């Protein structure tokens, strides 16, 4: 959407390698994410794209390589991830709202108990964010009373309410009914327009093309191709990407 190549690098992952037992899940993955950049990672199931995303906020550990963020290498053992996770928000495929808490308490848990912010201020912010995703009247609902699309929008608000610098989206529309995909993607597109730095793993090709500054194509734990969205979807550089796209595009 915008040219961000000259913006400072926010997260710099270099040669990230991860094994599950003996299987290589990530093989020398290097990717620098610039401020305000929207990077979309594509690839077949099991290519390591979700695993890579989860390495960026410490939900998976890395065996080799480095992940530099604000001058620290997060890949080192002994990293305290809690302050990092407050700055790198994440949204999951299956929403993962806390089912025993109301929307209000879901949204306040992080700001009040992790960030120790005043409840009233955190609530004001949560209300503002809910308004932005069109769910201002849902503050007192419980997750079970919401549709999938509503849950996912609230999960996005939950991550945003920590005021993160980066947002990670892990196949956030994959579990949704088709008619609810749009409402969630619109929220993410809105964030992109407001300059949020984002790393998005998705299977929605049309959305990837619309939102991405850069497409990263992964296969078998490696980055095969990095390209602009226009070039990637019209004339990809690698045969592997061509074969991948031929299965999606008619």
């Amino acid at each position, binding site marked *: 959407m915008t040219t961000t190549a000259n913006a400072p690098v926010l997260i710099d992952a270099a040669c990230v390698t991860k094994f599950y037992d003996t299987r290589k899940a990530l093989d020398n993955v290097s990717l620098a994410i610039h401020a305000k950049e929207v990077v979309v990672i594509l690839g077949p199931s099991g290519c390591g794209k979700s695993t890579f995303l989860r390495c960026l906020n410490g939900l998976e550990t890395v065996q080799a390589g480095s992940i530099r963020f604000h001058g620290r290498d997060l890949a080192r053992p002994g990293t305290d991830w809690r302050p990092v996770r407050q700055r790198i928000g*994440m949204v999951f495929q299956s929403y993962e709202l806390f089912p*025993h808490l109301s929307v209000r308490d879901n949204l306040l848990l992080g700001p009040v108990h992790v960030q120790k912010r005043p409840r009233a201020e955190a609530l004001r912010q949560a209300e503002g964010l809910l308004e932005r995703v069109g769910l201002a009247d849902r503050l007192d609902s419980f997750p079970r009373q919401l549709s999938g699309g509503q849950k996912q929008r609230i999960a996005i608000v939950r991550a945003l309410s920590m005021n993160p610098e980066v947002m990670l989206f892990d196949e956030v529309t994959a579990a949704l009914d088709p008619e609810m995909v749009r409402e969630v993607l619109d929220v993410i597109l809105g964030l992109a327009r407001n300059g949020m730095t984002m790393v998005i793993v998705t299977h929605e090709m049309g959305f990837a093309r619309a939102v991405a500054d850069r497409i990263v194509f992964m296969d078998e734990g490696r980055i095969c191709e990095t390209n602009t969205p226009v070039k990637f979807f019209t004339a990809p550089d690698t045969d592997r990407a061509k074969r991948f796209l031929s299965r999606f595009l008619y």
Partner: protein
Amino acid sequence: MLHALELLWQNAPLLLDGLWATLGIAAAATFFSIIGGALLGMMRASWNNAIVQAAARAYLELFRVIPILVWLFVFFFAVPAASSLDISGTLAAVTVFSLWGASEMSDIVRGALKTIPQAQYDAGRAIGLSGAQLHLRVILPQAVRRMLPGAINLVTRIIKTTSLVVIVGVVDVVKRSQQIIERTKEPFVLYAFLLLLFFALCHPLSRLSRRLEKRFN
């Protein structure tokens, strides 16, 4: 009918004395079962060490396959004989029911914890919760709801099974009733009383457990 009520009223102090013994043992066993079961259950759910897991399973299995009656004998007769410890009937009863309850409770706790999806842990960590916050605010509140029906059922089983303590000389409400029967030759009245008493103690719990189960499904 009037005669029966009169008989029970006259013997009320004895019956109440027995009832306290029954409830005291059940309450103590429930208390220790909850504490022991919670610790052991959390350990079994999260500590993936082969020896720890095998030991926990062996403990659970021993109390599943060997009758409580036998365990009462073990702690009342065998352990004192082998160790020169002086174990009263009540202490033996509380020990056995606590060990049994804790083993069963650990299975309930472990089962409930295992039903919380891994992704809930991820979601809690992703907003920066510490391990303690994650468990206290996200995992346990969900798990406790799932434990409650099974835990309440276990309490009713503990209350019913306390009637076995008679064989290690504890004078509970069943024993008191038998004493009164010997004196008054009124077995029908007293056994009917016991039936109603245990029903009144356990049925509300059983109903509560079923209600909670329905609500959480």
